[in-house]
């Protein structure tokens, strides 16, 4: 039926023939509003959370209808700002306890005890970012609630809490973790693969304390975060400024942190204007470097004299990963320094020098547009316009109350920018048979992004209401690098999983972007890890999950083997599967923000109709097919 309508529809003059979009038939204004609000809620939660669960989408969609689009989103954001933070290290510790390990004895465990620390690090990350499993008493919530507020008041507190996890904070922390990158390969971080020849003493869970610092600061201030990053012993170990001593006759300060704090954490390589445009030398046409090697040498002198807290002498390497590094003044270079053209006086302490150095970076003209672009890339789109970068940069520069670096203002500026809010077009039309039709389409090349594998997978699990059979409700998914090509705490280096400017080979290289983009090129960072191997393995993983509707988890712990399941729920899909069109329309909204093209939807519908009678086969095949569809993996 859809196919016939489409042909008729194409003839209508106000239907732009080159727009690739999906259309939905609606009967009245209320249905139109429900459709629009659900698609927008799904899209928003793909940016602001680890993917919306059906109940969360319904609740937000209801708010959009009630309060209006932007107000509802802002209300949701403000509400998220007020939720308590969930931390990762306590979850990992609890998992370890449940597995029979004595936390007080952790440093004594040896290789023979076979504590696979990366499992606990990864599992706690998945557990926290996916949120608590839905309580088993919860009813199927696929039907849109007429009013989210009324129904939630009468419900028990536990249910309300189950829906209201600190998703935005976790999502922001994950974005920050991809800017202020550490991985699990530092000395003492307990990476059994990379410390193969080191005694496998479990000193701590290492990077989790650092990650929790990012979680804590996710709604805080950039300058405070930069300070905590700099003084964090995990960063000090990872980039080597812990026990970095001043110059002597035989040694010179380590330059690693001095370089990366400029290149990656604050100002970047080139001078930028407020729109993120790279400034060039008028004579040579070459980009203007924002710092020189001399600046690195000077910054390296600033980061001297820091060491682990609670130790009896500089360099004793007891590695306290839980307290900020402290000053060992005798090892600090107290000479004059010149940082990016600013002079620091002699005779200042480590912390005074560091405070000044970080202030210089914080107040540098580059920092607002540089950090703005990176955060927009992580949360919304790969290629923000100059205007978008400018507006987010302005929010970074001043939150409206004269405060610079306020992440809450930055988050709102990113998520509520018109470029984010109105990236989907909804065209209303009436086709020849008199049916009202809403056509959803995106803006194309400059407005989309390939979803990161971990976000795609978390959204998949949440979309199908994943729940754990573990008695504590744990989502101990462990290390998924093999399937996803990406895993928290496992970035290959401080350069993250991909570079912000990565441009994949192929048609993007010949694309001439509009003048809206700052530097005349488009990038698509996430393609850097979409290798030939990763592309197939992701789908293979989803195939396994969908086939059994559960993810098997088995783990050998101190107190015996653990075996439990994370179950998926496709009841909504099964109920619709007798009608392939309805099933696909439903999955299109859920997984593809309504942008699956009519042509493709019709083709898939025909394939489903012709090949399978069984609703189970139809549902599972449709889900698996869409899990790897370009329309559903590249989001607007």
């Amino acid at each position: 039926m859809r196919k016939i309508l489409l042909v008729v529809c194409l003839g209508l003059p106000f239907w732009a023939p080159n727009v690739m979009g999906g259309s939905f038939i609606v009967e009245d204004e209320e249905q139109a509003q429900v459709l629009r609000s659900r698609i927008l809620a799904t899209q928003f939660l793909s940016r602001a959370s680890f993917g919306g669960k059906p109940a969360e989408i319904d609740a937000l969609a209801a708010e959009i209808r009630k309060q209006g689009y932007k107000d509802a989103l802002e209300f949701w954001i403000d509400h998220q700002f007020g939720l308590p933070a969930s931390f990762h290290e306590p979850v990992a510790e609890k998992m370890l306890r449940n597995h029979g390990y004595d936390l007080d004895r952790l440093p004594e465990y040896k290789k023979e005890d076979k504590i696979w620390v990366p499992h606990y690090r990864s599992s706690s990350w998945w557990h926290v970012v996916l949120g608590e499993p839905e309580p088993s008493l919860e009813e199927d919530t696929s039907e849109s609630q007429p009013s989210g507020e009324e129904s939630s008041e009468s419900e028990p507190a536990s249910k309300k809490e189950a829906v209201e996890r600190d998703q935005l904070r976790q999502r922001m922390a994950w974005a920050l973790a991809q800017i202020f990158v550490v991985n699990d390969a530092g000395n003492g971080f307990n990476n059994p693969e990379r410390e193969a020849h080191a005694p496998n003493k479990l000193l701590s869970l290492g990077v989790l304390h650092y990650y929790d610092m990012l979680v804590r600061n996710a709604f805080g201030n950039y300058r405070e975060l930069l300070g905590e990053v700099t003084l964090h012993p995990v960063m000090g170990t990872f980039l080597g400024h812990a026990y970095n001593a001043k110059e002597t006759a035989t040694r010179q300060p380590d330059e690693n942190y001095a370089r990366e704090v400029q290149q990656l954490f604050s100002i970047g390589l080139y001078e930028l204007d407020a729109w993120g445009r790279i400034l060039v030398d008028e004579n040579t046409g070459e980009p203007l470097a924002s710092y020189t090697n001399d600046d690195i040498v000077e910054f390296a002198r600033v980061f001297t004299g820091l060491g682990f807290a609670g130790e009896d002498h500089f360099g004793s390497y007891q590695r306290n990963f839980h307290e900020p590094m402290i000053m060992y003044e005798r090892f600090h270079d107290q000479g004059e320094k010149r940082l990016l053209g600013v002079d620091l006086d002699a005779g200042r302490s480590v912390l005074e020098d560091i405070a000044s150095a970080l202030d210089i970076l914080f107040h540098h003209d580059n920092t607002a547009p540089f950090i703005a672009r990176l955060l927009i890339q992580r949360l919304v789109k790969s290629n923000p316009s100059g205007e978008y970068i400018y507006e987010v940069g302005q929010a970074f520069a001043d939150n409206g109350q004269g405060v610079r670096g306020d992440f809450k203002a930055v988050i709102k500026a990113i998520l509520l920018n018109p470029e984010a809010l109105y990236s989907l077009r909804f065209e209303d039309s009436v086709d020849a048979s008199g049916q009202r039709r809403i056509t959803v389409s995106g803006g194309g090349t400059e407005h989309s992004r390939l979803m990161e594998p971990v976000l795609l997978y978390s959204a998949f699990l949440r979309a199908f209401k994943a729940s754990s059979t573990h008695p504590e409700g744990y989502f101990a998914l462990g290390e998924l690098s093999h399937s996803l090509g990406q895993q928290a705490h496992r970035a290959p280096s401080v350069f993250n999983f991909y570079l912000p400017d990565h441009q994949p080979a192929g048609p993007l290289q010949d694309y001439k972007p509009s003048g809206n983009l700052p530097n005349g090129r488009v990038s698509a960072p996430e393609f850097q890890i979409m290798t030939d191997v990763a592309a197939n393995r992701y789908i293979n993983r989803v195939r396994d999950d969908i086939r059994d509707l559960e993810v098997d988890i088995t783990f050998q712990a101190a107190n015996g083997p653990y075996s439990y399941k994370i179950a998926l729920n496709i009841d909504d899909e099964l109920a619709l599967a007798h009608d392939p069109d309805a099933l696909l329309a439903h999955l299109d909204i859920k997984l593809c923000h309504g942008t699956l093209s009519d042509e493709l939807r019709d083709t898939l519908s025909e394939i489903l109709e012709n090949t399978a009678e069984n609703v189970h086969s139809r549902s599972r095949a449709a889900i698996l097919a869409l899990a790897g569809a370009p329309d559903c993996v590249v989001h607007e």
Partner: protein
Amino acid sequence: MKKNHPAQSYSRRQFLRMGGSCAAMSQLPLMSTMVMLGATRAALAQSPAAGGYKALVCIALSGGNDSFNMLSPIDYEARGEYEDARTNLAESMEGLHQLVDARDGRRYGLHASMPDVAQLYRDGALSFVNNVGTLIRPTTMKQIQRGEARLPLGLFSHSDQQRHWQTAVPQSRTERTGWAGRMADYLSDQVNFDAPIGMNIAVGQLNILQTGVGQLPYVVDGRGGASVLEGYGGSHVQDRIVTEATDAMLEDIYDDLLKLTHARSRRRAIDAARAYQAATSGVILKTEFPKTALGERLRQVAVAIAARTELVHHRQMFVVDQGGYDTHDAQHKQHPRLLRELNDALKAFHAALVELGCLDQVMTYTASDFGRTLSSNGDGSDHGWGGNQIVMGGALARCSNPRMYGEYPQSLAMGNALDVGRGRLLPTTAVDQYMAELALWLGVPNDHTLVDILPNIRNFYGPGNLNGPLGMLPMQGRADNCLLNSTLGRGLSGL
């Protein structure tokens, strides 16, 4: 000549089976090889890329190998300068493997963790290219001191120097293709026609090095090789639906170029994995590789070399990566472990090439971001510039006693004639010269083609020259008697 040779009646498939055998090929007179290639494609007989199967294997030592500790001077005076410069980072003399450079008799100590690399050097199967680094043009200390030198962008920075090694365009941060990608654009038309996947194969991750205008490296995994899409083409009802749906959605039907890129990437991943798996599934490799990431990756390379006939590859280029060389800290602990892993993996890979009879046809070389500062930061070293690299392959030793290439600095004292600060050394051999030697050996002609691949090469090396810029490898088109004579029996002496 042609009519006297039975090769002309071979079917292409038969020829490829034969031509794919390294041992069989290397025992045939050069002329016959040329004729046989002519039987497959008329143009090929005149092609500079003719001459049987050849491959390059790049081992990227990511992070910047401290290569003046890997290979340190041991002659009396030079050792003293080395120890003074490196202070607490200096390697103890004890356990070093002594290597002599046949050119001038200078003696070097190879790191204690690399006994097999030392033996391979003494056997003539491995050597070093010394103090090589990124340059735009020949550069002197005087030019640098006067601020007149045109220097690579972002010296001493990982991201920049890794990029420059790969693109060979160190004056740019925006070049999108790598020299091996551009080389594959050229060579694939010449030799690998009809191949189901391109000649550039990366084990582990994507890289710029092998990305060309029409080429993207095929990425396989160190552990599993290619991963096929499960259920694709299967007969189960669910698999039938997904297969048909997948085929439909991966057509070129997208206006959004990210979607189009995604569709093409998935299409390629599905097809190439099937082809790769079919080609490699029958490979039996007896050589045991170490169970390290690098060992597994080089094993994957050996598997793909063994499957070259099935892959229809006359030329292959591989990139594998060994990370962890950014030894700002705990260098004394980390660096020996890394070099040991490298030693063990190289030893196994060499043995596998002997097993496959391909020793003379495969050149393995290392690349690294940069050398490191000679001065210590207390517990490690920082980012430098010039460094020493390893090259391995049967083609090396045809005519000479064990020798090295490039120029090892006369002095490693702080403030030496090449020290641009903190013991970062001005390279005396450009990356371009090093790579040109390998590209010419693989079959790139020394004309405009070489310039397309290595745009700065003419700053270092003239056109038409029949010897390579380093004088390291036997080149096509050059009368080189020892090339033919030494071919026989190489497989044995390589052991």
